[in-house]
């Protein structure tokens, strides 16, 4: 019986092998990617650890979602791909907005006068802007929408957009931009932009209030309702009226919230039964950008393909200084996009992402990945010349594309805290002592492999107001020594501490040791970094206690001011100092505005607030620069944040990927990516030859394990009763 069993096992193994081996013949065995459609140059990338939650431009407000939206939609404005500082350009419209100013009576006034009550932005849609082919635009013989159902059963055979056989398209109209803004105002959409934009766009709040009372049974045609601040002048021209002067509004026009939405698309997705099959605008964006979504499986992958109706767009012929020398203009003048298809696969685990990237199955280490720190831990090693790429990466010809993000991560002091807060000279000295003790350079080298720049002010590089060199250092924390900033000594910090009333870290009046409390998000801090901080503050005799909590609890503490030192971060919406300096604007304190204000330190200095109000309405120029410099000086003087750093956005590119310059603000850069497909195929084949010997070794081991058992069994069968 045993031999029959063994024979059966052998036969089963052979059959299984025969079934599996033919599958192994085409390409490397470990290739996780299905074959791309023939003739389409495909870019392979990853999604962040979680799939996007929203792809409706009115609802989405996350960088990983913007990665898709900005390839599909074209808002009115955009950014130059290569030039730095970031340069705003018309994208969906023909030219920069024509801005006119009026007084409260609607009469034109000079922009520099106090009488300005409204700013009117007039824009003309590009004549060649056209929507992607989509069933929402398909018409029947009578010119009526082809897919308009009254009964859920009528359209039940359509489960994905690719199931609709008939497609249509039309040019982008001015009304589509107006319709998109009305969608922002529709309370039913619960757009995160409504509260903020209603402060500026005339009539948005009233429009929103009015829509609250409208019965919701299916689609509501927003064109039937008027918003005072919106005017569609003709087929291609529209006007947006905002309250007062707000020069930063042009930057907002470069965000996906202002992308055009065709009313018939909105109507299409409100067909009965579509919602139950996840056929919604939130999952199937429809735009006029360079790519269109052809597959959206949030569980697995999102696939974009070239939009055949995309307007004529070309690779820029000029860039920032040094771009030409570094070959970044090699594709100058070429028609965009440079690839046909882009696949973004859901990758949750760092090991998988990293392995597939090194095996060549991902072209880049990621466009946006929540675990980047852990990814790049494996990429860099500390060598004799500092942090450098690991040997395996260098051998693969992998290149690094670093870019300092227009962002800041910081630990702030609660300026209302009875121990650390306040504006007296003693309190300032106390905070400065802590600032000096926290060696940001060492912290970044240890925990971020040097992928960050210690912040000298709230304004990161690339944003007007950032000052390099000696003039740009925080003189309260650094000295300029041998052409570089050098942190002041611990002895100096101790002296400041003593002057603040805490000699050797003890309260001069009570003798109690000074203990500071840091609120941290549990997921964002490790025990090693807490140990490091203990040691850092221990050097000046200060004790630390950590209060880890999840984000909800941390947010609650910030809203109620129940914190002493907290961690936070800010990623720029647009490249203007106002977008960073408002993090310290008094009325933005959650305790004052009773909202999720950005000034979590509750910094209140009347001079700063006044300067901010003046600065935010000034156009770029020396006057504005002077105000910004003074505000930065106040921030340094008051020592509002314990430390801050500008994170580096690091992406690794396999050698066949070109045009890797990162853009800190704009995400619509996929159209510039170029792939050398021949090199990619060759390298993949070369890097992924399977190692077969372990299979033989394991078989031999299995036999070696089984054999003694078989022998013992046979011996037992042949044994006599006495044996």
């Amino acid at each position, binding site marked *: *019986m045993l031999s029959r*069993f063994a024979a059966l096992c052998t036969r089963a193994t052979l059959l299984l092998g025969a079934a599996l081996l033919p*599958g192994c013949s085409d390409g*490397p*065995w*470990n*290739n*996780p990617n*299905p*074959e791309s459609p023939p003739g389409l140059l495909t870019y392979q990338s990853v999604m962040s650890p*979680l*799939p996007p*939650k929203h792809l409706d431009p009115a609802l989405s*407000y*996350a960088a990983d979602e913007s990665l898709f939206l900005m390839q599909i939609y074209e808002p009115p404005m955009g950014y130059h791909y290569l030039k730095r500082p970031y340069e705003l350009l018309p994208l969906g419209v023909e030219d920069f907005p024509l801005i006119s100013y009026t007084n409260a009576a609607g009469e034109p006034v000079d922009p520099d006068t106090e009488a300005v009550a409204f700013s009117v932005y007039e824009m003309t849609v590009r004549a060649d802007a056209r929507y992607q082919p989509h069933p929402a635009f398909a018409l029947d013989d009578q010119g009526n929408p082809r897919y308009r159902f009254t009964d859920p059963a009528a359209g039940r055979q359509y489960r994905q957009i690719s199931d609709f056989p008939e497609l249509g398209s039309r040019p982008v109209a001015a009304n589509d931009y107006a319709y998109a803004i009305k969608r922002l105002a529709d*309370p039913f*959409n*619960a*757009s*995160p932009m*409504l*509260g*903020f934009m209603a402060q500026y766009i005339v009539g948005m709040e009233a429009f929103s209030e009015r829509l609250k009372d409208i019965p919701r049974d299916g689609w509501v045609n927003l064109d039937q309702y008027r918003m005072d601040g919106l005017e569609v002048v003709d087929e291609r021209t529209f006007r947006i009226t905002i309250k007062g002067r707000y020069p930063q509004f042009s930057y907002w026009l470069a965000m996906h919230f202002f992308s055009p939405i065709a009313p018939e698309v909105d109507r299409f997705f409100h067909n009965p039964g579509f*919602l*139950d*099959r*996840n056929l*919604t605008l*939130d*999952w199937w964006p429809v735009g006029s950008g360079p790519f269109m979504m052809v597959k959206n*499986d*949030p*569980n*697995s992958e999102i696939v974009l393909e070239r939009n055949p109706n995309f307007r004529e767009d070309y690779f820029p012929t000029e860039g920032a200084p040094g771009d030409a020398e570094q070959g970044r203009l090699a594709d100058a003048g070429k028609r965009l996009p440079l690839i046909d298809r882009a696949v973004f*696969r*859901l*990758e*949750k*685990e760092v*090991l*998988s992402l990293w*392995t*597939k990237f090194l*095996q060549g199955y991902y072209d880049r280490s990621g466009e946006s990945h929540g675990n980047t720190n852990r990814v790049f831990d494996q990429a860099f090693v500390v060598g004799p010349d500092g942090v450098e790429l690991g040997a395996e990466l260098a051998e693969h010809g992998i290149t690094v594309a670093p870019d300092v993000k227009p962002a800041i991560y910081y630990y702030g002091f609660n300026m209302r805290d009875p121990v650390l807060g306040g504006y007296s000279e003693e309190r300032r000295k106390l905070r400065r002592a802590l600032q000096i003790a926290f060696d940001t350079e060492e912290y970044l080298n240890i925990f971020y492999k040097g992928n960050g720049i210690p912040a000298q002010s709230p304004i990161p590089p690339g944003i007007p107001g950032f000052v390099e060199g000696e003039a740009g250092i925080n003189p309260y924390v650094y000295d300029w020594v041998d052409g570089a900033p050098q942190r002041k000594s611990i002895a100096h910090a101790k002296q400041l501490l003593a002057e603040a009333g805490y000699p050797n870290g003890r309260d001069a009046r009570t003798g109690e040791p000074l203990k500071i409390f840091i609120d941290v998000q549990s997921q964002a801090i490790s025990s090693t970094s807490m140990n490091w901080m203990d040691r850092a503050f221990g050097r000046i005799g200060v004790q630390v206690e950590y209060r880890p909590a999840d984000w*909800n609890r941390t947010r609650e503490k910030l809203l109620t001011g129940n914190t002493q030192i907290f961690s936070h971060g800010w990623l720029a*919406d647009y490249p203007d100092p106002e977008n960073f300096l408002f993090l310290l604007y008094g009325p933005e304190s959650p305790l004052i505005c009773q*909202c*999720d204000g*950005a000034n979590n330190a509750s910094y209140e200095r009347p001079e700063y607030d006044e300067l901010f109000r003046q600065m935010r309405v000034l156009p770029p120029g020396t006057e504005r620069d002077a105000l910004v410099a003074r505000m930065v000086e106040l921030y340094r003087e008051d020592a509002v944040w314990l430390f801050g750093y500008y994170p580096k956005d690091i992406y690794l590119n396999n050698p066949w990927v070109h045009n890797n310059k990162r853009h800190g603000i704009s995400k619509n850069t996929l159209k510039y990516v170029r792939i050398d497909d021949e090199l990619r195929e060759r390298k993949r084949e070369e890097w*992924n*030859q*399977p*190692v077969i010997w*372990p299979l033989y070794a394991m078989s031999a081991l299995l036999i070696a394990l089984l054999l*003694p*058992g078989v022998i*013992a*069994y046979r011996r*037992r*069968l042949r044994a006599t009763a006495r044996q």
Partner: protein
Amino acid sequence: MFAYIVRRLLYAIPILIGVNLLTFTLFFVVNSPDDMAASQLGDKYVTPEAIANWKQKNGYDKPLFLNSQAAGVGQVTDTIFFDKSVRLFAFDFGRSESGRDITTDVATRMWPSLAVALPTFLVGIGVNICVALMVVMFRGTRLDRGAVFVFVALMSISYLFYIIGGQFLVAKTWRLVPISGFHTEGQVWKFLVLPVLVGVVAGIGAGARWYRTLFLEEANQDYVRTARAKGCSELSILFRHILPNALIPILTGVVVLIPSLFMGSLLIESFFGIPGLGSYMLDAINSQDFAIVRSMVFIGSILYIVGLLLTDISYTWADPRVRLS
């Protein structure tokens, strides 16, 4: 037996209500509707109006359990708990916080879960039983003692170690299969080999040791001695006599798991990128999507109850002396 099944199904209703109440309470103790709204709306410019709009849109603008503003039955029915829970019993799971239809997602995702869980389950049982029977054959010998030592060692190793070790060796170093992923287009099997292998190997220690204990108990019974005295071979004794007689405890541990196979495995699916229900649940917990968590807990409870019922029914098949009443 029919009456028994009906009675057991009726018992399930209060159990499901209790589970639902418990899930609801636990979730909202740590996560208020305001927290949910804030996390869904992002970190920037979140105004109280935006939070109020989100809550209204998603049906979280009512009291949790008791609506003192309402009259009569409305005090109970016009609440978040009632709104969100009652329709679960009609298998209407509603929408996730990001607006997707949960029923559609569950129906789509259960197949990848099953594709991994079913072979892991079947191969795992087969391997564990075979290994346990082999060890029982050599009971009391050094081979038996060595095997028990190996089983305990295998049990002591973290499941994560098997996953990461398997990925590192088989996929990264030897490049025999993809390290993760899942595609229905083309060769699905190559995405399943490693997770199934890891699942089976990780389960051998505990599984084989458990079956060994069951078989050892049977191996000392009189009928085994009789069979041996009749001249039956050891293999015949193991597979034809001991195995069928040890089925009751095996079924107790195994049949209850069958319906739950649809639910997938949190760890395996997450690490191997399998878009199944296990990773669905994990993502929902991470993104604080209560609608999904609630639905998955509800489905899990139902499947567990069905599993227990099936276990009882399977006893009658394994041992005709058992009668359900």
